[in-house]
């Protein structure tokens, strides 16, 4: 399980022997492959990578890698990853989430993670449905999608995560498609390399509860233009495209979150500050 330190690692060295619980045909299998390919391409070692997640189908991904994993509570993966990365800037930290975990219960953390711009790579596997709880509308579900919990559709408009990310200050914004594992791996590698908070929305079909999403492979296509560093331009493109432009859409230049500085004092010295002088 532990390859020798000198050897160059292949994607398979990042894949654990633990069998995923996902349904056959789930897009997340391909995302797992893309993650492992990207990590191999980046020349990283599994012990120096942490994969942090919340709750949901996509959030099961950490244990399927040979990296250090953190499978926390629902919606809080970005918070846990922020603490980890600030405390351990030497690690490469990937955060895995889904549209329910990341945009609904974890929506507030999404905004603030973008603002804070900690050097994280946030991978959201978006299938427009709560899969683990067997088919409820998520923040990216179309308003007329019928389900047991929202018969006839929720009637509520979808959330636009890429625009929200831009507006909130994410430093790297991309859209990927699980049906193209190599393309997704390349985008993920670029996201990891880019400093600051990188957001990669991966369209990852749920063939069980959204069989209609099998059609995504016909709809996905490469973005027609190169990424911009102008958030307004990127936002206009994203808001007017067909939702299936695949590629890096925005690369910003914001400085990442500043971390610790070297110690200049000791606890004993801090205590002496309270000692009474004179008298």
């Amino acid at each position: 399980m532990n390859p020798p330190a000198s050897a160059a690692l292949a994607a398979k060295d990042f894949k654990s022997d633990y069998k995923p619980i996902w349904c056959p045909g789930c897009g997340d299998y391909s995302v797992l492959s893309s993650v492992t390919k990207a990590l191999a391409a980046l020349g990283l070692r599994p012990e120096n990578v942490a994969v942090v997640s919340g709750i949901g189908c996509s959030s099961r991904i950490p244990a399927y890698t040979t990296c250090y994993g953190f499978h926390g509570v629902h919606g809080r993966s970005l918070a846990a990853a922020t603490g980890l990365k600030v405390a351990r800037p030497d690690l490469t930290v990937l955060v895995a989430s889904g549209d329910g975990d990341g945009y609904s219960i974890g929506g507030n953390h999404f905004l603030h993670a973008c603002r804070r711009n900690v050097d994280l790579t946030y991978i959201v596997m978006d299938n427009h449905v709560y899969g683990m709880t067997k088919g409820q509308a998520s923040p990216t579900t179309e308003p007329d999608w019928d389900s047991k919990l929202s018969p006839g559709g929720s009637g509520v408009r979808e959330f636009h995560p890429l625009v929200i990310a831009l507006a909130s200050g994410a430093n790297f914004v991309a859209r990927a498609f699980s049906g193209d594992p190599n393309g997704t791996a390349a985008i993920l590698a670029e996201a990891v390399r880019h400093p600051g908070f990188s957001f990669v929305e991966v369209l990852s079909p749920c063939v069980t509860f959204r069989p209609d999403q099998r059609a995504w492979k016909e709809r996905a296509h490469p973005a027609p233009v190169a990424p911009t560093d102008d958030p307004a331009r990127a936002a206009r493109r994203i808001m007017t495209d067909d939702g299936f432009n695949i590629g890096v859409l925005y690369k910003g230049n914001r400085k990442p979150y500043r971390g610790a500085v070297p110690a200049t004092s000791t606890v004993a010295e801090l205590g002496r500050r309270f000692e009474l002088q004179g008298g």
Partner: protein
Amino acid sequence: MTAGQTPLHPGHGSVSVALAGSGGAGVMTAGNMLLEAAAQAGYYSLMTRTSGPQIRGGEAAAMVRVCSFPTDAQDDRFAVLAAIDWQNIGRFAAEIPLDSSSLLIGDPAQGDPPELFLKSGARYLPLPLKALAKQIEGGWPNMVALGVLAGLMRLPAQAVERAVARSMKKGREAGINAARLGMAQAAAREDFPLPPPPPKTVRWLITGNEAAGLGALRGGVRFVAAYPITPATELLEYMAPALAKLGGTLVQAEDELASINMILGASYGGAPALTATSGPGLSLMIEALGLGVTAEIPVVVVDVMRTGPSTGIATKSEQADLNIALYGLHGDAPHVVVAPNSLADCLGATEWAVHLAESLQVPAIVLSDQYFGQARAVVDVPVFQDRVVARLTAKNGAAYKRYALTESGVSPMALPGTPGLAYTADGLEHNERGIPSSQASDHLAQMDKRARKLAQLDPGENWASQEGGCDGEGDIAVLTFGSCTGPVREGIARARADGVAARLVSLRLLSPAQPERLKQALAGVKRVLVVEQNHSGQFLRYLRGEYDLPGEVASLRRPGPLPFRPDEIYRRLLELGRK
């Protein structure tokens, strides 16, 4: 633990005064100077504060007790209440009790004192504070009032002047002159002279929140996530620059859900981590604390308790989060709950909580409160450890089992970056390797393991402060925790002086419970008085649930924000003693 000096009999060891006024009157500034002056003169001293609901500019009162012995309890009555003005000050009447020997000082230009104070029988001494201040260029009424209060206590002028000079960057000369003028007003009076100061020792001037923050740093905390909430904010604000000086970091979180998850992430990475909050924030953190229990990630949460439920009275104290701290987590979730039992012990208890969390790989909750957190006191140098307890980490080895079923229940934790030991920390129940498991046998084995860690904890003397009863003296015991301990200690000392002996047991380790230790501590006891500051008797119910209490059990409790006063304890003990 406190240094444990026995307090003196009432009326012989201390003088309590209060200074009140509207926002901008500078009563807190003057109160802090009085505290500093008392310290300069060699006294112990305590300043508590109260304020109206306004964010800024509301009425406030600084309550200062100057003592010849260390205490963080307020006395029964205030000798003096001085007010810069009387606007809305009447609402503090219950918090500033007076009697016929008290003195009310007010500026006649501001009208008469409120009836609520006059009906105590206190004498009224009109003093034109504003007009007096005007005699000095750049003089302020609060500085005159400071001088009056210091003068009535016969604090040495030099100590007052030094305190003013230390605190004031601008207008120092005017401040000193105004204080001198105030002292001159008091010169002809012999009202409330202090006893001689105690022998000189090294002392600290610190708030409970600062003490808890420093305790955390001493314990090894190097990552803090912070979401502001009254009355815990000052703890976090103290830690922000202090952590930076130690090479640590503080992240301001978007909410308490983020705070708790950030510290879990940081601690998973190996950094001892803490957050501080109050009741509403603790409620939000509870789910993730369960993750800390299951994934065995050490974290410390300091709950500076305030009056609840819901928003309650955000600026005032209560001991009503005991239930949520002990029992709030879903599932069976063994964790540590520690309560400091003096202002200075906010340091030692928080430091210990970090040690317990790290050594047992569990979440630890520290139950401080607003009374400790926002009070500032002259204290003996707090007791602390001279070492940091490092967590048990895994360095290498084949077929690593993160959650190996060890005898102690504690299993070596691999930190990210360690080759060959990668595992996934998970809120899902898991087997020894950390692989999710829904097997009954794995659930039972891991539950046993997590329970074993706490069951095998040997807290030594740290579990409680025990005072009295060493030579079998007295068959009465008072059981309490947290900020009730100070007034209980004084009440016991007064009762003893009047022939009723009682022992004090103030619990510091609330979870895991220590029934055997308490049984020993209560050997020979026939009557137990349980003292706590909440409405429903949470501590009493906890004691009844976890311990065997001997004999007759009485409860003395009330909700916040009014603190217990030594006299209440004393009277209750005399009643019990007569039985």
